[in-house]
């Protein structure tokens, strides 16, 4: 049986851990609020962008139009852009995104397609590296970034487009976690190239274009990719904090439970010791 001293040390250490998880939970709650405002602020732009694109795409026959919109007609090489967090200790957040990406990668490989992976965030990279070392083309590290702004997402988008133009892949899919609520984050796969168009535009208005349609599309489509990536990173940031908050809430509760149990054992052991000593004294006295 553990000695009293051992038990005391153990309780003290669990208490210290509990303080840390409690603090992390509160920090996550504060950060979540900021991340949530950022997501909500960015949503209108992404939604309008989608609507404008849908309006434009309605002017094309399915499968026709610029490569970024309609694809290049092949689907041999797939690029998976996997956006995860830079830090752990946030429950199943990173794992669930990685799992979705891994399933997709394996399914594609089973079909005999080539898979390439671009990681945004270190945690996803760490997990995917074990299995897909050769497929990972790059890791984008956003650890130094405190509040993600569009300027951070834009270079990633441009990088993806450049790779596409150089023919390094045919289809790009973006993996991230959609923020529903503090307790619910949904790992999501979204196709970037060819662009995923939601809902046809109601009777595509016959637009006039300034300067012309091609030029507008060639400016709008790359921008759309950056915007989608930007939104994914923001959604991720909010999801991460939400996941961390609930994970740390659980941890704090578990620590409390453990302290309670250990304290009971400690008290019981202490009492047993006292009883034992008393018996020894009494029997010693009787023997005289």
């Amino acid at each position, binding site marked *: 049986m553990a000695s009293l001293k051992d038990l005391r040390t153990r309780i003290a250490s669990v208490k210290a851990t509990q303080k840390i998880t409690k603090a992390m939970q509160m920090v996550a709650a504060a950060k979540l609020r900021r991340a949530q405002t*950022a997501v909500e*602020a*960015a949503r*209108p*732009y992404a939604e*309008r*962008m989608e*609507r*404008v694109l849908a*309006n*434009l795409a309605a002017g094309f026959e399915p499968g026709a139009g610029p490569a970024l919109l309609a694809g290049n007609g092949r689907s041999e090489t797939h690029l998976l852009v996997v956006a995860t967090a830079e830090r752990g200790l946030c429950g199943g957040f990173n794992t669930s995104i990685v799992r979705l990406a891994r399933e997709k990668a394996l399914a594609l490989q089973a079909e005999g397609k080539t898979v390439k992976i671009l990681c945004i965030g270190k945690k996803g990279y760490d997990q995917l590296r074990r299995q897909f070392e050769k497929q990972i083309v790059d890791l984008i590290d956003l650890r130094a970034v405190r509040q993600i*702004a*569009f300027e951070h997402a834009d270079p990633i988008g441009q990088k993806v487009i450049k790779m596409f133009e150089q023919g390094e892949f045919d289809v790009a899919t973006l993996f991230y976690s959609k923020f529903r609520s503090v307790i619910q984050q949904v790992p999501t796969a979204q196709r970037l190239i060819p662009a995923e168009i939601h809902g046809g535009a109601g009777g595509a*208005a*016959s*637009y*006039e*274009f*300034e*300067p012309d*349609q091609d*030029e*507008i599309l060639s*400016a*709008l489509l790359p*921008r759309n990719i950056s*915007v989608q990536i*930007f939104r994914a990173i923001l959604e991720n940031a909010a999801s991460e904090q939400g996941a961390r908050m609930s994970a740390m809430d659980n941890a704090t509760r578990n620590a409390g439970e453990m302290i309670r149990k250990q304290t009971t054992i400690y008290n019981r052991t202490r009492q047993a010791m006292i009883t034992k000593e008393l018996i020894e004294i009494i029997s010693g006295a009787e023997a005289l």
Partner: protein
Amino acid sequence: MTTFHFELVSPEKLLFSGEVESVVVPGVEGQFTVLKDHAPVMSILKAGIVEIFATVTRAPERLVVRGGFADVAPSGLTLLADQATPLEQFDMAQLAQDIRDAEDDLADAKTDEALKSASEKLGQLQELKAVVGA
């Protein structure tokens, strides 16, 4: 005068949403004013000032935008600005800094392509400075 729905959004937030009577948009091929029932137009924006008239008689709300898209649809006007700041909050010092950076880029540009994009960017910024400074 009748009003129509107008929205101005930047990637980071929704800056304006509501009913307005007229909006002056800095299109890449020239400024144009949008009133109710304007024909559907899709235009690239250049750096400049957007003027929002909630009612024509009142002084307009003025915002500086740096490129983006305008989508005039039957349902209203949507501006997708790359960057948008209310005029009174606009930082001239920052703009001056950006112009200096752009000049440096232009001086450093090695390829034709870099040269072209740098000079385009500088031209836009200088134009913006002229417009905002006035």
